[in-house]
């Protein structure tokens, strides 16, 4: 079943917001159209500035598109009552690159994870405690971490708390915007595997936004390549890249072994 439909999204930022002159700059997004099935993992790749994050933010409702519509389970995100919007918010969660900045530093991990439950569920205190424990367990964190503050835990742990928070309300779609880019390799692999397990167990759909083609190909069923605000190519798993923008990303993948170096002019 189709979970999300993105239709002809356009986004322009006013170049110089000067009182008399309002020039339109090059559009950040141009006629972006795609759809997402339930339980699917869609990768969106592109260089910095290609508009992938803007697209993610528009789907999340953080920014309004200049034109176009977004249908989440058939409901237009930008033409609906606030009541319905609240319900959509529940099914639509996000994990961003900088996990520390998406926490309130004055809240403990327990309070951070409890917040979505307080907003949407009518749980008693013990139920919430139980649920938080369950969530931490789900992302393979010890439950005693709940008493700590975000600044007291490592980046990898923070990112896992972020994922746990996104999972708290059993959403249907999680947007992962460069969610693993800032982590070191052992953690990256760990979190990717965690995301894959969770996807299977909870029938989640992901939109995985990244500039790293390698990680994206690893997790995604389908990849969209963006360049200058446009979708330039759609690739299914294991298909070859054709568009120059995709090839540029593909060629920038670093080798697995020094033998495969591309600019190898060092002799041994």
């Amino acid at each position: 079943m189709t979970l999300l439909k993105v239709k002809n999204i356009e986004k322009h930022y006013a170049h110089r917001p000067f009182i008399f002159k309002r020039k339109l700059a090059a559009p950040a997004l141009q006629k972006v159209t795609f759809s997402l099935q339930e339980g699917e993992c869609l990768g969106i790749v592109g260089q910095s500035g290609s508009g992938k994050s803007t697209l993610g933010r528009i789907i999340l409702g953080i920014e309004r598109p200049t034109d176009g519509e977004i249908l989440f389970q058939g409901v237009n995100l930008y033409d609906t009552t606030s009541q319905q919007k609240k319900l959509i918010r529940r099914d639509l969660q996000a994990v961003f690159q900088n996990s520390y900045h998406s926490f309130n530093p004055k809240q403990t991990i327990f309070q951070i994870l409890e917040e979505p439950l307080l907003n949407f569920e009518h749980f008693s205190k013990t139920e919430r405690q139980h649920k938080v424990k369950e969530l931490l367990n789900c992302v393979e964190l010890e439950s005693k971490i709940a008493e700590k503050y975000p600044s007291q835990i490592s980046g990898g742990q923070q990112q896992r708390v972020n994922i746990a928070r996104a999972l708290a309300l059993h959403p249907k779609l999680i947007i992962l915007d460069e969610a693993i880019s800032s982590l070191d390799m052992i953690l990256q692999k760990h979190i990717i595997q965690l995301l894959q397990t969770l996807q299977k167990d909870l029938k989640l759909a992901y939109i995985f936004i990244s500039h790293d083609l390698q990680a994206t190909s690893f997790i995604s069923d389908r990849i969209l390549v963006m360049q200058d605000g446009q979708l330039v190519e759609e690739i299914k798993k294991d298909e070859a890249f054709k568009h120059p923008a995709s090839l540029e990303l593909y060629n920038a993948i670093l080798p697995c072994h020094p033998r495969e170096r591309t600019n190898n002019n060092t002799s041994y």
Partner: protein
Amino acid sequence: MKKVLEVKDLSVKIGEEKILTSINLSAYQGRVLGIIGESGSGKTMLCQAIMQSLPSIAQITHGEIFYQQQDLLKLSAAQLRAYRGRHLSIIMQNPSAAFDHIQTIERHFRETLKAHFVMTKNEIRQLAIESMSKVNLPNPEQLLHYYPFQLSGGMLQRVMIALSLAIQASIYIADEPTTALDTVNQKQVLTLFDRIRLETEAAILLVTHDLGVIAELADDVAVMYKGEIIEQANVYDFFDAPQHAYTKKLLQSRITF
């Protein structure tokens, strides 16, 4: 091979906590020494110890750092300034935090070069343009008038490298130089480092958490774990015959498709 930098038995402590424990390293002319380790393994602390820009709570308790024949730890602050930024140059992870956003690129070149050389404005301008075109920056003349916030992360990182090129540093300490860049820019910056070490014969200390970066550029690899160097090897041996259990785990973490 000429040894340009040698770290001998270096230990650093913050309070009672050991941050670095007996580090031994050598960097050679024209070679790239990759230092790999996870976050919190002490990679950045090592760079800061070499540059002697450690936070004030950290103390070097033991060890020597030789640049050619000179022990940098025995120098006074004023003597050290003649080395730091002149022979040893550091390239940091976040280029936009390393620049002063209210100064033009030209002012940055002027400030750096005036600190070490006697040069006229015109000479500095020429040298700046020359080194910026060496790092493949488009329109270097125009770029001089730009402010750092007007440039992208990848461009700024290249300006940073151009600065080091202009002072003809003999050691580049690159602390996660490509982590904040996208993959296409990352590749460009790594290619640039490769060219620099061939053309200028500088030694490059490349600190990273990314095995791909090591595979692309390093000649030798040192693996850091919890403040210690647990393994040092030629890059081929590192990939083909890892010795330490942690190194093996690290190599298995690579995402492939």
